[in-house]
């Protein structure tokens, strides 16, 4: 059990600010993914928590205790890197056993811990294989096993599956998921891959330009990003963003757009003259048949994507939208189509990119 808290943590490299006064909490026994594009500062933040990087200012606390200047060895953490840290000249069993020999455990306890991590990470069949015989995915499982066997309170991961080939990725993810569920450690996991974050995390801390933009459960972040950045970064492809002026009608605000057959009322946007309408490609409905809630559009491009679904680029008035539809519908559609943007799937943002706490209605 260990809660990690960082307070106004900052790291500068010369003139570059890698981490910008970040204050946040990584709850105990929870998997938090630090997600963001390359260069967003996520790895630097992780390395300051590990003690591998000295902060320019700010503090790191483990369970309320200040550890900012403690060396990594005295922090009771485990760390797994992009490249598996294993001893190549020996077998899997010895790799897991070696760190435990320094821990002053009796032989029975040592064996119990080895058995436990071997079972969790599915290494039973590889136990007496030499490291050189193993693929990258299995080596990384060994690296995780030897880290976990020491039973650190906090485990830090830095893009551990980046260098693993596609075929063993799922296996490694499954092992990591199993490990975090069974051992209830505080895990901080750095990745640029939104799918890995959505799959592994209890909560995601989304980073951009050295700052944490939003902390939320994966589905909450996906469905209700508090910034256009979250809407764009999560999803394949991300949200459509369409800027509109609002019309003032007495006390109310009205949005007239080629996306809707009739004007739409906006509630709670009194001070915003312009809004960005955000909608995910999979929430737009396309059809060859006209419906009362649809508007006419023209297919610009179509392509096959995940699971045989189709990704369309559709011109609607002055807007270019991306819409994802089921295979059977996508195969048929071309030329003129009818598009529906259901208002319940729309997120509104201010022109500065922040989410607007407003709702839409047809009347």
């Amino acid at each position, binding site marked *: 059990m260990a809660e990690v808290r960082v307070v106004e943590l900052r790291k500068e490299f010369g003139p570059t600010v890698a981490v910008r006064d970040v204050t946040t909490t990584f709850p105990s026994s929870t998997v938090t993914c630090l997600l963001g*594009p*390359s*260069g967003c500062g996520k790895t630097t933040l992780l390395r300051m928590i590990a003690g591998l990087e000295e902060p320019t200012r700010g503090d790191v606390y483990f369970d309320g205790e200040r550890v900012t200047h403690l060396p990594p060895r005295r922090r009771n953490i485990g760390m797994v890197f992009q490249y598996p840290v294993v001893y190549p000249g020996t077998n899997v069993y010895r790799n897991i056993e070696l760190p435990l020999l320094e821990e002053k455990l009796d032989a029975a306890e040592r064996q119990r811990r080895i058995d436990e991590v071997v079972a969790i990470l599915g290494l039973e069949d590889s136990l007496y294989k030499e490291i050189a015989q193993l693929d990258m995915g299995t080596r990384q499982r060994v690296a995780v096993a030897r880290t976990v066997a020491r039973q650190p309170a906090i485990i830090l991961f830095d893009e551990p599956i980046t260098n693993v080939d596609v075929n063993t990725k*799922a296996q490694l*993810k*499954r092992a990591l*998921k199993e490990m975090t569920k069974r051992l209830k450690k505080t895990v901080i996991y750095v990745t*640029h*891959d*939104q*799918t890995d974050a*959505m*799959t592994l995390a209890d909560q995601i801390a989304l980073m951009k330009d050295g700052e944490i933009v939003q902390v939320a459960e*994966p*589905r909450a972040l*996906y*469905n209700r990003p508090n910034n256009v950045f979250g809407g*764009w*970064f*999560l*999803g*394949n*492809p*991300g949200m459509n963003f369409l800027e509109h002026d609002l019309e003032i009608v007495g006390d109310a605000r009205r949005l007239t757009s080629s996306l809707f057959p009739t004007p739409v009322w906006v509630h709670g946007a009194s001070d915003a003259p312009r809004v960005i309408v955000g909608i*995910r*490609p*999979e929430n737009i409905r396309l059809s060859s048949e006209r419906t009362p809630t649809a508007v006419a559009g023209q297919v610009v*491009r179509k*392509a*096959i*994507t*995940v*699971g*045989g*679904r189709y*990704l369309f*680029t559709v011109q609607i008035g002055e807007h270019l939208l991306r819409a*994802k539809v*089921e*295979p059977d519908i996508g*195969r048929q559609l071309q030329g003129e189509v009818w598009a529906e943007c259901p208002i319940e799937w729309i997120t509104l943002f201010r022109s500065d990119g922040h989410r607007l706490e407003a709702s839409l209605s047809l009347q």
Partner: protein
Amino acid sequence: MIAVEFREVSKAYHHQLVLQNVSFSIKAGTFAVIFGPPGCGKSVLLRLITGLEKPSSGRILLRGVDVTGVSPGERNIGYVPQAFALYPHYSVRDNVAYPLALMGVARTEIDSSVRRVAEMLHIDHLLDKKPHQLSGGEKQRVAIARGIVKQTEIYVLDDPLTGLDFKLREQLFDDLKQLQQSLQATFIYTTSDPIEALMLADQAAIVDSGQVVETGPLEQLYWEPLHVRTMELLAFPKANLLSGTLFVRSDQLWCQTDLFTFPARIDPAVGAIDEARPVQVAVRPQHITFGVTEPDGLLTCRAQVMLWEDLGGEVIVHLDVQGTRLVTVVSHDGDRLLGDETITIGIAPTAIVLFEPDTGRRIGQGVGM
């Protein structure tokens, strides 16, 4: 009009055959993707087009003219290499201009060509910067601009987006597609990434183990694959493959796998099935129905959920069915997320495709029960 044609081309290095009797052609003005797993021979194929390699046997034609013996400099092809080595001390402008400067093109003409491609690739605001001031995605755009600055009608792109973050690649898909359309040129593009191939290709050549196993328009390859590797690899997630046995019982042809047995139909050209014979059984992830309650007409079995991979709009579900791994993909409806559990899956036999194990050729499919 045919832009590129291979006639019975083979290539060997030190008696090791890396391309084996390859014949195919690429229509002019299309986005053609040469797709296959790493090490399949697609880069060699590309180097044969540019002239960086000579075939051991066979002929290569560009624009209808035999160029087998023609040097790279005289083939008039634009080239975007895989590893983008920009000159660190040159500005973006000079990096892009480099191929034209090398050809001795006049400065004013170079300037207008650089401006034209810079606008197309949205890097016109970066022309005075140095490579170290650019992000990874911007560097890649500069490398592509350098590859297309020479005005010609055939461009070769060797896996140019490999190693980029998914988000950067996603932005470049649209730009590359638009670029090819506005240039009205032939793009020949290699990749081992199925999503990239699906997003970009008008037509594709599927390469496996030194052979072009199938070529055609993309949608035809996806929906009506004639080779097992096309069906398996040109999809995300990959198609599921099982081994099966074909046999006849009471005048009906059946296919049996470890998981289920279903009636099947074989193309007449294959001939009669007199004795049991092995077959490869393929089914796409999206054709495995999840959580079946009314199994009418479906092959069903119990499956253990191993992992949910949440893509946002879709979920890839990894299943264990009595020791066999299957992958399925479902739309994400709302916030439903399941943990480890056992569920019933169903497959319509008509969605199952059968391939011959030795040749990889499609020989038939499942039929309704």
